[in-house]
């Protein structure tokens, strides 16, 4: 039984040829019909929502949660493949960790924990037996619920893409689909109405938007939503606001053409950020541009620079490809694997090192490292920056403030967000780390500034974007509904909109995969491809050292703050948490499980996403 072949089937499909003609006219001068773009937006955003839920619950959460079932009054560890914890129990959510943080929560979030049994967490099954595993059990349930919510997102997508996964309706310069009022109604039913006529602001139980939840859910004690769970994780593991800091440069290609005017203030989170209203200046649902932050550089007003596609370049200095000097633009890219010949060289990865020349003169030293992904998109759109979480939660790190010292619980550190909370967290967590064999206290983060690009920032930005994208999906559904005539909304494809191949051209496609900026580049002659290069999100984020010797964003995350602190080299879960905060996608494998439960892995060649 094949249970998984990777997850990134959607976005590689949509960026290839459809957009080639648009900015460059390399494919065809024929315009993408407006309604085809609107259909694609529905497909794109419902896939992103699905993917964000996937990433948080099914890839990230098990770095923090020990899956358990509550049976007959006892907690029973789940030992199924992929669910069984790989590290010492003390690294996960434990009773010691919960009870260390709980008194702080009682003061800050009385609806979550009161200490008298009436907070929402205290109502969890088994809380009286073991509060840590009560939360683990609750989040295990959320993990399982999320599987069904993802199916529902696929269901919405499949109404417009023919099927999901593996969209079959997307065509060059078009989209072969149509929609009726019944289709739109069905999407809304899955998204928020729940068959009982509820609204996006008050979604019905069991719907997608009900599961994603509201940024204020934690403060309001409304458990059972992704937003609640993300904030709960941030409270239980606050040290990760100062761990895994990246490069401070953010790149986003944008997506969602023909989206019309997107008003960020229409979403709950956007309304908090932009009470006076804020519309996207780009034609897209999400902007294209780059922000060179460095420390705190992304704090508003954010300077969003336009992307010049000719300023992209890839280095292979750290790669296992036939060497070339400096950076090559993908239209002159060379990808010749040479793993044997390069043994002993500087190369160590089959990923290249994409970089962006921020000056534009194509001098080698100007090619800079950029992070891509939901955090980058949110920064480029002005929706996330160091310190922004303070608009949502009383317990949020302050921009530029150093982290806690869990070694000593040092009381002289500057405050967290108010008088002394940082020290309180530090002192409380010190005892938690002492439960890990061989360690007294945890990391000393007092020399590390909070820059808004930590492990928890990437997770939080992804969840907040997921919430905003739910609102965008509502918007896109109404757009298509408004074009129904004679019973159908059509994509506007006619014989005249089908692209015709020129004799020789080059083209590219740029879009945003859920995990970040994605571009494909090609040249063709006489109807045949002569050059093809893909610069995918993971090659940005997981890239090796480039021709300037600069490590990629994830490598920088492993080395920032004086080097990532790990409790025990034999465990290394801290490395995993940093790595998983990105949404890497390297190449796929088919996992086979025999009836006896034996896991076999068969590698298949695949395109990194």
């Amino acid at each position, binding site marked *: 039984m094949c249970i998984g*072949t990777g997850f990134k089937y959607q976005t590689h499909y949509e960026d*290839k040829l459809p957009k080639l003609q648009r900015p460059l006219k390399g494919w065809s001068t024929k315009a993408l019909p407006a309604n085809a773009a609107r259909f694609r937006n529905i497909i794109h955003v419902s896939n992103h929502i699905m993917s964000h839920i996937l990433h948080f619950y099914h890839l990230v959460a098990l770095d923090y949660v020990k899956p358990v079932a509550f049976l007959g009054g006892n907690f029973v560890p789940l030992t199924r493949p992929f669910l069984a914890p790989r590290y010492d129990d003390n690294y996960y959510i434990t009773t010691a960790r919960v009870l260390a943080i709980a008194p702080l929560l009682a003061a800050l979030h009385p609806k979550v924990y009161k200490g008298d049994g009436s907070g929402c967490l205290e109502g969890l099954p088994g809380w009286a037996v073991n509060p840590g595993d009560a939360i683990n059990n609750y989040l295990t349930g959320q993990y399982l619920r999320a599987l069904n919510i993802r199916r529902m997102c696929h269901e919405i997508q499949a109404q417009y893409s023919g099927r999901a996964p593996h969209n079959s309706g997307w065509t060059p310069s078009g989209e072969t689909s149509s929609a009726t009022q019944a289709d739109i109604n069905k999407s809304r039913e899955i998204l928020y109405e729940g068959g009982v006529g509820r609204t996006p602001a008050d979604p019905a139980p069991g719907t997608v938007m009900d599961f994603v939840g509201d940024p204020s859910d934690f403060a309001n004690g409304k458990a059972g939503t992704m937003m609640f769970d993300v904030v709960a994780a941030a409270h239980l593991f606050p040290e990760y606001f100062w761990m895994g800091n990246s490069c401070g440069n953010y790149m986003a290609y944008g997506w969602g053409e023909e989206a019309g005017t997107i008003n960020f203030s229409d979403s709950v989170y956007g309304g908090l950020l932009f009470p006076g209203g804020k519309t996207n200046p780009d034609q897209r649902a999400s902007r294209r541009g780059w922000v060179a932050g460095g420390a705190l550089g992304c704090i508003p007003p954010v300077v969003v620079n336009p992307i010049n596609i000719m300023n992209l370049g890839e280095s292979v200095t750290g790669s296992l490809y036939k060497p070339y000097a400096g950076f090559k633009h993908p239209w002159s890219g060379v990808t010749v*694997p040479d793993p044997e010949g390069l043994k002993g060289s500087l190369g160590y990865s089959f990923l290249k090192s994409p970089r962006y020349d921020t000056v534009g003169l194509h001098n080698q030293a100007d090619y800079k490292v950029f992070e891509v992904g939901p955090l980058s998109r949110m920064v480029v759109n002005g929706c996330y920056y160091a310190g922004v979480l303070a608009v949502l939660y009383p317990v949020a790190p302050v921009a530029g403030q150093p982290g806690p010292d869990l070694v000593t619980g040092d009381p002289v550190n500057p405050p967290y967000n108010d008088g002394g909370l940082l020290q309180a967290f530090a002192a409380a967590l010190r005892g938690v780390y002492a439960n890990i064999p061989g360690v007294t206290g945890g990391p000393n983060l007092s020399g590390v500034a909070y820059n808004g690009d930590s492990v928890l920032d990437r997770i939080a930005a992804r969840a907040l974007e997921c919430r905003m994208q739910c609102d965008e999906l509502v918007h896109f559904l109404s757009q298509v509904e408004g074009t129904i005539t004679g019973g159908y909304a059509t994509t506007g494809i006619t014989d005249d909109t089908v692209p015709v191949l020129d004799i020789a051209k080059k083209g590219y496609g740029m879009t945003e995969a859920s995990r970040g900026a994605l571009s494909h580049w090609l040249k063709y002659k006489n109807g045949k491809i002569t*050059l093809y290069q*893909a610069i995918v999100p993971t090659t940005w984020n997981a890239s090796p050292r480039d021709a300037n010797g600069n490590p990629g964003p994830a490598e920088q995350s492993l080395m920032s703050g004086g080097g990532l602190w790990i409790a025990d080299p034999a465990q290394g879960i801290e*490395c995993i948490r940093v790595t*998983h905060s990105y949404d890497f996608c390297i190449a796929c494998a088919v996992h086979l499980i025999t009836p006896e439960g034996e896991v076999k892995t068969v590698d298949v060649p695949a395109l990194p996403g």
Partner: protein
Amino acid sequence: MAKIIIDPVNRMEGHLGIEADITPAESNGFRLNPNAQCRGNMYRGFEQLLKKRDPRDAMVITQRH
């Protein structure tokens, strides 16, 4: 010098390895040295296999993985 190698990193789409030297931290635990590496361990080959194909095939082929 002590070294930490995690390869492959699980619960990820694909095969990534992490390798870094480590040194004891100031007071307890360890820190990764500035030679940390992220390794993509598999070659994908799309650049080669798409050559000589119709450009319109690319969007279908690169999706199917």
